[in-house]
């Protein structure tokens, strides 16, 4: 049984569906990367899983349990976390407060998890009392990931974590994602830097027009001449 399994998912914002039968399976050991052209439904897939828009067809199962149209306050305690692409930090709150908000659904002592996050992002430990709005783009992205990790998720979903970052930070963020995965957190992410991300993906999904076009390991997709030609820019 996969950690997260999507079968023929149909979803949209109320009008015509944007997803027209998306299939996906992710294990806790996986790093899944969703690539595809603009408007293919990449971010929509993550939002549909996370209950932010209506799933009208197909099934979404997490640990064998249907979670279609469940709201985040039910999903986060189950072990699912989501980092949106934009506005993914509470700018008026300190770094530490941001992390605390990630642990809102936990009623147990989360100081150990916070320590774990600070070990992963030592910069944040230094700036724990600083308002997040004062941090650089890369550091904000770390806060956003740290916040999502505070609920001790089994699966971390990231919407374009490298968007707007300088190349140096892109590499740093990708390295962090791999490290998070090695610590036993499954990852499902949407990425614009397709080739770079597929290089470390254990599962790759190429979406186009709301459907899976190609599915395979990251290496397979990069090696596939058709994928390379149509979706990875030659």
């Amino acid at each position, binding site marked *: 049984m996969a950690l997260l399994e999507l079968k023929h998912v149909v979803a949209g914002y109320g009008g015509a569906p944007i997803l027209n039968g998306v299939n996906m399976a992710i294990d806790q050991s996986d790093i899944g990367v969703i690539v595809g052209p603009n408007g293919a439904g990449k971010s929509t897939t993550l939002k549909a899983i996370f209950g932010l828009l209506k799933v009208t067809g197909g099934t979404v199962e997490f640990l064998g349990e249907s979670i279609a149209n469940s709201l985040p306050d039910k999903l986060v305690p189950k072990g699912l976390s989501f980092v949106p692409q934009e506005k993914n930090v509470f700018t008026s709150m300190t770094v530490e407060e941001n992390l605390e908000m990630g642990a*809102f659904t936990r009623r147990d002592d989360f100081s150990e998890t916070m320590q774990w996050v600070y070990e992963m992002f030592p910069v944040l430990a230094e700036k724990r009392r600083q308002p997040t709005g004062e941090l650089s783009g890369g550091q904000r992205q770390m806060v956003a990931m740290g916040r999502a990790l505070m609920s001790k998720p089994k699966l971390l979903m990231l919407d374009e974590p490298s968007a707007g970052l300088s190349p140096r930070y892109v590499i740093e963020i990708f390295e962090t994602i791999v490290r998070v995965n090695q610590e036993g957190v499954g990852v499902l992410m949407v990425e614009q830097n397709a080739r770079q991300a597929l290089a470390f993906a254990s599962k790759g999904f190429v979406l186009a027009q709301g459907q899976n076009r190609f599915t395979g390991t990251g290496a397979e997709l990069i090696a596939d001449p058709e994928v390379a030609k149509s979706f990875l820019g030659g």
Partner: protein
Amino acid sequence: MTELVFFINQVVISGAVLGCIYALGAVGITLIFGILRFAHFAHSELMTSGAFFAFMLAALFASWGIVTPIPLGFVVLPLAMVMSAIFALGIDKGFYAPLRKRGAKPVILLIASIGVTLMVQGLIRLFFGAGSYSFFENETKDIFRIDLAFLGSTRPLVITEPQLLMIIVTVVSVLALHFFLTRSRLGKAMRAMADNPDLAQVSGINTALVVRVTWIVAGALACMAGTMLALDVTLKPDLAFNIIIPIFAAAIVGGLGQAYGAIAGGLLIGFAESLAVFNWTMVLRPLNAVLPEFAQLPATLSLVPTEYKLTVAFVILVVVLLVRPTGIFKGASS
């Protein structure tokens, strides 16, 4: 020295009292704006109804023959605040929550809150009539006169017991609010939701719970402000309706959504109003002795006549919005 004491009595004390009332009202408005994104016009009615709750409780206590060293209005305040919090939750559930569920725009909620204003005010008039009541019909309002003769003042420093208690209670509740917002899990969740509602939802914060807590805090503080106002002046059905404009001005001047801004804005407008209507002749009268006959000071020399006190809030509002469009504490611009 006498003149300085007069100035303190007229401007500092009455300004502080007015400022406290504005601040407590404005904090509620700013919290509701931060969480629910609409201007809650009916906040004045939460204040007035809160004062009536306190008045009823005080009357009830008095009828049981309970005598307390401090005015009964303050003794029953915690109970009245609980009642007001429940009342505020009920109003939200009855009027605003159904609209939010249908995705109503902020302006529709604003109009709905004007409707609530009229309804609550009508309800109060139905039960209590249009007359005014006093908390001190059977109690005496203690007045502290602090003799400052040793400083060379012929006038004492005058502060009434309710005024003194009001300032103390406001300071305590502002501190309590500060610790709630910066230390408690729910208080932080409130700030998170005001900062970024979508991310708050994504983090798994129970947004419905945060909305309820907001109404509880806003309702309780409104009750406090209303009761204090009624203790300082008299209780009537349009008690707080008359000052909703300066309260809104305080919230906007402070920066909408900023709790500390609302407190600063409330105090600023409270002091400014007292200062604007202050009769300077009282202080400058000694000058008459040296001034020539034709330049004698008039009997009243104030910035604005008392009847135009309300305009002070607008002037401050306009000036602040021109200089800092988001308010002193950088709130929402809309």
